[in-house]
């Protein structure tokens, strides 16, 4: 009796049990938490575990600490050119990586042609189709130097860029092609005279520039033009002519895709290919042959034996070709994705370099947060 009492009084904690994993999750849960596992039919564990107390019963804190984020977060640039870049972003959640991607596509402002004043168009291509084509031409102008044109504003040197296009195919000559390089920037604004009822008033144009854009910022050394010279706008037959003025304004991708500063911006999670058992000889050859992107290599392990190795996991497209062909293949190879490792690619249209686009996108997310904070306080 007394012995039993003693037992009950003794303070017992579940954490004292020898098989309780302290400070780390059991391997299968750790796998679920950090990897997407791609099975032959569908991927599993695709969601991230958000809730801070999700693993509280195991004594593990799932909350985010800024200090640990700071020490774990890494960026590695893989490729960086004038208009395209690839980089690895490691140690960040999909929610935030996706916010950056969405902002890049739809919330970064650029300049694009919004209004087209057509004086003459005898070409085959209709006015509205021509205007649409002009709108999609990326323009080499830093949008940060311009203001938005709102409905009641008059177009001025701070919110409008004017281009002129005047091309003519002489009768008797072969057909000619109109390229984007024919769009000539007018730093002094519109040259078309507005028709007015009163005869004695000073003739006004469709814009009211107070000074030439040439004198502003650094446009004189870096004149505004379409980013590419050889974009085909239209084709003219003999005797046909196009004369128009195009007005470019600042806008955002969510209004119309022509204002999107990126051709595309996307990310993919880092593929992880693991051989669950030794894959040797003929099976190794077969495995190497199965993969269309050559993820696997074969190494000699002596005595005429060969073994498959994972040489280029990054090339894996998760086509799952290697785990097709029966259950035994699923037992040999595991295809996974690392949930917090993003291979981010940005293709710029050329208006701004890709690395500037990304920093601007991050700034926009910061501004959004700040707006909420000021509204709440």
């Amino acid at each position, binding site marked *: 009796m007394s012995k039993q009492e003693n037992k009950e009084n003794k303070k017992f904690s579940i954490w004292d049990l020898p098989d309780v994993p302290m400070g780390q999750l059991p391997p299968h849960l750790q796998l679920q938490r950090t990897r997407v596992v791609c099975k032959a039919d569908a991927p599993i564990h695709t969601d991230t575990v958000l809730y*801070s107390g999700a693993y509280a019963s195991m004594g593990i804190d799932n909350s985010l600490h800024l200090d640990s984020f700071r020490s774990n977060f890494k*960026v590695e640039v893989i490729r*960086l050119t004038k208009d395209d870049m690839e980089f690895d972003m490691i140690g960040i959640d999909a929610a935030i990586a996706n916010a950056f991607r969405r902002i890049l596509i739809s919330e970064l402002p650029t300049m694009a042609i919004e209004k087209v004043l057509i004086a003459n168009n005898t070409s085959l291509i209709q006015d509205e189709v021509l205007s649409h084509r002009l709108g999609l031409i990326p323009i080499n102008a830093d949008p940060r130097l311009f203001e938005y044109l709102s409905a009641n504003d008059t177009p001025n040197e701070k919110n409008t860029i004017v281009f002129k296009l005047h091309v003519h195919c002489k009768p008797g000559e072969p057909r000619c092609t109109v390229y984007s390089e024919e769009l000539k920037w007018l730093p002094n604004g519109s040259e078309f005279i507005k028709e007015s009822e009163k005869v004695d008033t000073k003739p006004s144009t469709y814009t009211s520039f107070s000074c030439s854009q040439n004198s502003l910022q650094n446009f004189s050394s870096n004149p505004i033009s379409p980013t590419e010279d050889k974009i085909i706008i239209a084709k003219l037959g003999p005797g046909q002519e196009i004369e128009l003025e195009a007005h470019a304004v600042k806008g955002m991708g969510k209004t119309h895709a022509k204002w999107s500063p990126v051709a595309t911006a996307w990310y993919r999670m880092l593929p992880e290919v693991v051989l669950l058992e030794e894959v040797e000889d003929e099976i190794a050859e077969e495995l190497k042959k199965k993969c269309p992107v050559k993820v696997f290599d074969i190494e000699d392990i002596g005595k005429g034996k060969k073994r498959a190795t994972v040489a280029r996991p990054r090339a894996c497209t998760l086509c799952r070709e290697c785990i097709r062909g029966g259950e035994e293949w699923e037992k040999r190879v595991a295809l996974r994705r690392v949930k917090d490792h993003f291979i981010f690619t940005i293709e710029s249209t050329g208006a701004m370099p890709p690395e500037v686009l990304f920093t601007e996108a991050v700034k926009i*997310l*910061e501004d959004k*947060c700040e707006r*909420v*904070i000021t509204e*709440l306080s």
Partner: protein
Amino acid sequence: MEHGSLQDPSRATFSFVDEDHTLANAVRFTLNQDPRVSFCGYSIPHPSDARVNIRVQTTGDPAREVLKDGCQNLMLMCHHVRSTFDKAVGDYRTNTTEMEND
């Protein structure tokens, strides 16, 4: 805009105008990672109007303060992302110019 009960400040729904999944999902992430939050979720009531509702329920702290902290956290994370990214780009540039010079 905030819809909460007067008696219990620990639960409230916040309505952000002109925002979408971009901010709402990121904020939901940071809030769910906060141990003071017992529930956080968001919804877009109708796809045609630019508005998201974010529901925050806490274990006792005022929801408004917790949401503010969540945004603050997200902002600091962004700041760190930006500085790390700029540094990585700088490193890449110096490495490639060195390689060209070699």
